[in-house]
């Protein structure tokens, strides 16, 4: 019995020792878009593993991230939109890290194969309620989207200009759930991250352009937005921040970026 207690105590001591370690480290801080959380966290983790440097990410929103770079309170800003000309005039520089493509999906039996961005917006606002208004069969359109805090929803609504105006029949919490719901309902339309589309649903073309890595990269597929790294023009980054910047924009990071569900551009 004593042996058992000894072993128990030894285990506890070993565990408490393992919890120690770690010292003052070089840090790279990022701040901005909540939509970029998945991709930037994955990059940050890989960077920390490779170099041992510290990596921080503040999920505040693109606007706040851009401002933080301007004020110098973070190394690299994260924005899920292009910089405005006024922001560029203030000495900020944009580097596109990746492109987030959002596929518009319908049931495979749906005869509608193409919608314009305006039609998609009208459908989700509830202005077009039947498939026959857009060239399909009779049937009330069922809009399926994501929960309020989703980055994909934020992206879809900002691209189509339907913020706070969408009338959803279902608000699901993952790409997979949206896929299943759309695959089950012949009248459904939904949106998911392009990388998660499966052949249980049909991804329609938008304005005549089918979604795909090529059409997203050349900019012809409309339902997309850039993930931008924002830095200060002319001002040098710290050594660690520069190392992270180089790593994130190198082709070595492509696999990590793809795994996070977006299209790498470098």
């Amino acid at each position, binding site marked *: *019995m004593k042996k058992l*207690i000894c072993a128990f105590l030894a285990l506890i001591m070993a565990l408490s020792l393992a919890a120690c370690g770690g010292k003052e480290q070089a840090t790279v801080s990022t701040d901005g878009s*909540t939509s970029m*959380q998945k991709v930037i966290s994955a990059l940050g983790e890989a960077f920390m593993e490779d170099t041992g440097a510290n990596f921080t990410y503040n*999920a505040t929103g693109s606007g706040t991230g851009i401002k933080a770079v301007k004020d110098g309170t973070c190394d690299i800003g994260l924005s899920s939109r292009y910089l405005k000309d006024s922001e560029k005039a203030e000495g900020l520089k944009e580097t596109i890290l990746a492109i987030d493509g959002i596929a518009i999906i319908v049931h495979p039996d749906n005869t509608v194969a193409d919608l314009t961005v305006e039609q998609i917006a009208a459908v989700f606002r509830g202005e077009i309620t039947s498939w026959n208004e857009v060239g399909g069969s009779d*049937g*009330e*359109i*069922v809009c399926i989207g994501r*929960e*309020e*805090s*989703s*980055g994909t929803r*934020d992206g879809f609504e900002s691209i189509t200009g339907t913020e*706070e105006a969408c009338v*959803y*029949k*279902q*608000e*699901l*919490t993952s790409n997979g*759930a949206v896929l*299943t*719901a759309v695959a*089950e*309902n012949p*009248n*459904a339309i939904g949106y998911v991250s392009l990388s998660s589309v499966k052949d249980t649903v049909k991804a329609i073309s938008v304005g005549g352009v089918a979604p795909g890595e090529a059409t997203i990269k050349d900019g012809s597929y409309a339902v997309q937005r850039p993930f931008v790294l924002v830095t200060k023009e002319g001002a040098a980054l710290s050594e660690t921040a520069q190392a992270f910047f180089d790593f994130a924009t190198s082709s070595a990071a492509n696999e990590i970026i793809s795994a996070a569900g977006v299209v790498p551009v470098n």
Partner: protein
Amino acid sequence: MKSNKLFERVVHGIFLLLGLVTVAFVLLITVYLVVCGIPAMMEIGVWNFLFGKVWDPAASDPKYGILPFVLSSIYGTAGALVIGVPVGFFTAVYLSKKASKRVKEWMSAAVSLLAGIPSVVYGLVGMMVLVPGIREIFHLPDGASLLAAMIVLAIMILPSIIKVSITALDAVPKEYEDASLALGATPEETWFRVSVPAAKSGIAAAVVLGVGRAIGEAMAVMMVSGNVANMPSLFESVRFLTTAVSSGMGYADGLYREALFSIALVLFLFIMLINAALNFFLKGEKK
């Protein structure tokens, strides 16, 4: 001899420690929920929070009214009881009083199995079978609705209702039933006039247990109810208290996140009430 005593003390100490850990967790969670949940409620205003009809935390003018969730949770649970309690109750009476030993064994095993199925599986089957089924039967554009959630919850609470009711019915002294039969009552009269009233506090406890399970379920409900913050209506997509918390927690921040803690606090109070009711019924049984 001496080492034996030491050993006993050590074991006693370990058991006491483990017991205290459980108590500590309950206290910790309670305190944490209250501390995290109160500020947002104060900031939004208790009245606006509990009785506001619009939930739109991501809007430029955010609204934090949780009345749709509270009502959906209550209606959904009530609907599950309306469907589940009769089925569970009569199953329990049949298994306890009428069924042959073999049938009872097999069906009890099936009920236990039903209790062991993870809620995500209920949700998945509901999503693939029930939701399209409701759409077809009622000619709706979409089947994800309060009704679908009620049916899934009704099935999920069956095991607790059946098992606890059987235990209560089995515990009715055989003399009661023998006396009733000797006085010329039929077996059916005996079950419903003698056995069931004698076991009523146990059956009530079974129902309360079912309520607890239904109101706390998140995963299965989220997958079949559509998860839109509408005021509840049978064929509309709705969001429960539980699913409001779980669907927002991933990315929410600021007041939105604090409001989710407030929702959790409201849910916690509901469950405390149900537990209090359960204790009340169980005490009644002992008396």
